[in-house]
């Protein structure tokens, strides 16, 4: 086993593989930072180039780009409240408030270090799970996936602490919007008004670009001034301070990395869910949940570590069963076939060196892409000083382009602009756009798996399946933990500021 691991490392360290990995990372950072473009588009562009490459070089190129989009997406989420990819949504919630306080460098430092540690953790989970990959994935059925979605939805209650009714209504509105389109099981058209444009539902990326890019920029322009309201720390001092934070909150980092790796291993659930659920876990286990959203380091550590560790997790079903763990790994499956590799048990029995090489590539790419991003962090923080009247039109255009880039549909542009205005008013009148996004992200998974579990195991499926029951107990505990801690908690944690 150790020999094969070292063989995998040697494959990754070949000069040609390293060169292509570096090229991929640069492209990934750029793609991640542009709203609407994500690792999937980066992979789609790069796949035609891998036909003549060796497998280790090809995976270095593809995974280098894909992993780098994780940190790339967080850069704009922190600096501009515009998630570069939908996988960075939860990073906005505490990352951007830090940038507003002039602590953008610190936030980027936290994000980068969480990316590195989370990435390595995901890879360790992947390595450990090799012998038990198949039974582990077969145990995850619709009832378990439904409970994961329910666990995430309880976050709406926790995040609604400031204005309970408005928070709950925002979350429920998000869930209702997720029901637009064809019913996932019966195929009945709902809320489509007879138009085919709504049959696939409302595109998440378009809503995110609207709520965050357009809505935030309307607010920035109306308020006047720049993103950062205080003095901006440009140097590496803030970045260094941020890099130490994940070590300070090491237990949270490990827990959220586990969440990311486990959710990543659930086929079809997606990284956005991992991001949101990990953030919810950080809020629900904090002694001061009400201070989240004001620039808490834990609010960046949680989503960032889970975001990247899910890459390792998503590889588990992809490699073990040939079932893509997410959209990007579905594209990656195409690369496997192009390179003459058959994902499935053969990746463990015949191509274990390639499997280990993939793990090393994910780990090394997360390290190098974060280092590359950190080199620029001090300078990137200057974006927060750009006046609103220059930044606002630029970001609105990025939002529009991002919405279009998601599916190449002009309808998504109109959806983004519409949700931009709605998002602005939601912020103005105390509604929670974060709760709306959580509802929208989890709604489809929640409903599809509920319907399927109901058909497969009957209405009492939660109580008859052991893993579901454990998840139900965890959900109830997570739901009431903040209230119990608030009532009986002995001390108060230090806030992020």
């Amino acid at each position, binding site marked *: 086993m150790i020999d094969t691991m070292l063989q995998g490392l040697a494959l990754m360290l070949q000069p040609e593989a390293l060169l292509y990995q570096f090229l991929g990372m640069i492209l990934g950072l750029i793609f991640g930072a542009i709203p609407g473009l994500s690792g999937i588009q980066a992979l789609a562009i790069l796949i035609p180039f891998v036909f003549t490459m060796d497998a280790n070089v090809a995976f270095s190129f593809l995974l280098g780009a894909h992993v780098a989009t994780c940190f790339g997406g967080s850069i704009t989420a922190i600096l501009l409240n515009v998630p570069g990819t939908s996988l960075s949504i939860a990073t906005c919630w505490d990352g951007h408030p830090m940038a507003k306080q002039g602590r953008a460098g610190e936030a980027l430092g936290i994000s980068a270090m969480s990316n590195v540690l989370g990435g390595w953790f995901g890879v360790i989970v992947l390595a450990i799970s090799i012998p038990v990959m198949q039974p582990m994935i077969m145990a995850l059925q619709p009832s378990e996936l439904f409970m994961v979605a329910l666990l995430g939805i309880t976050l709406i209650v926790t995040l609604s602490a400031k204005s309970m*009714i408005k928070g709950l209504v925002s979350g429920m509105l998000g869930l209702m919007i997720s*029901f637009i389109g064809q019913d996932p099981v*019966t195929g009945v058209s709902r809320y489509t008004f007879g138009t085919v444009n709504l049959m696939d539902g409302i595109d998440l990326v378009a809503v995110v670009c609207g709520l965050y890019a357009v809505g935030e920029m309307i607010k920035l322009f109306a308020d006047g001034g720049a993103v950062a309201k205080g003095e901006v720390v440009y140097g590496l001092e803030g970045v260094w301070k941020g890099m130490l934070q994940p070590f300070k909150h090491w237990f949270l980092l490990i827990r959220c990395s586990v969440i990311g790796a486990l959710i990543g291993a659930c086929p079809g659930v997606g990284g956005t869910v991992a991001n949101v659920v990990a953030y919810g876990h950080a809020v629900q286990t904090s002694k001061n949940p009400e201070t989240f959203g004001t620039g808490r380091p834990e609010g960046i550590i949680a989503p960032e570590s889970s975001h990247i560790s899910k890459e390792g997790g998503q590889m588990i079903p992809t490699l073990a069963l040939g079932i893509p763990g997410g959209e990007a790994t579905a594209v990656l499956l195409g690369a496997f076939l192009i390179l003459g590799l058959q994902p499935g048990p053969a990746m463990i029995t015949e191509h274990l060196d390639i499997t280990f090489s993939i793990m090393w590539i994910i780990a090394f790419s997360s390290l190098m892409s974060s280092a590359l991003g950190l080199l620029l962090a001090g300078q990137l923080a200057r974006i927060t000083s750009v006046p609103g009247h220059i930044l606002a039109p630029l970001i*609105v255009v990025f939002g529009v382009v991002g919405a*279009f880039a998601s599916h190449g549909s002009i309808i998504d542009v109109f959806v983004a602009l519409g949700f931009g205005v709605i998002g602005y008013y939601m912020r103005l*009148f105390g509604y929670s756009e974060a709760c709306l996004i959580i509802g929208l992200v989890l709604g489809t998974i929640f409903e599809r798996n509920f319907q399927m579990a109901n058909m497969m195991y009957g209405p009492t499926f939660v109580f008859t399946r052991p893993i579901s029951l454990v998840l139900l107990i965890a959900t109830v505990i997570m739901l009431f933990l903040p209230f119990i801690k608030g009532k009986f908690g002995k001390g108060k944690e230090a806030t992020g500021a």
Partner: protein
Amino acid sequence: MKLNGERLFNLAVLAVLCGFVFMAIDFTPKARLLPLVIGIPSLVLMIILVAADFLKNREPVKKLSDEQLKRQWIMFAGIAGLLAMILVVGLSLAVAIYMLLFLRLVGRMGWAGSVGIAIFAFVLVYGLFGMMLHYPLYKGLLDLV
């Protein structure tokens, strides 16, 4: 009872939720189950919020200054203009014209800077998405680029 922006927004949310719930009644039993399970409680919560708001006659969450209101409407006008331009001249030209006009007229940026950024926006949309990624760019009514 005075109607302000917040109350109008609350009423709009209430109307949307009413629409969601009443339309769900016509769906098949399986298709309407979760929309009703989620929709009815949210409708009840929203009615409580609106009723409490009107009965207590409390102050709005945030009141904008005249300057903020003016800037808000400038931004809305810009977005409406962008929407209209996309429909007429297509996506790539619309984002370039929007950038140029906004930066020049609202941001008071010099010609060189505004034109430079507008060209960058055009190259980003037309070059990256149209040429490199082969997205079918919306060309608008004039069907130019």
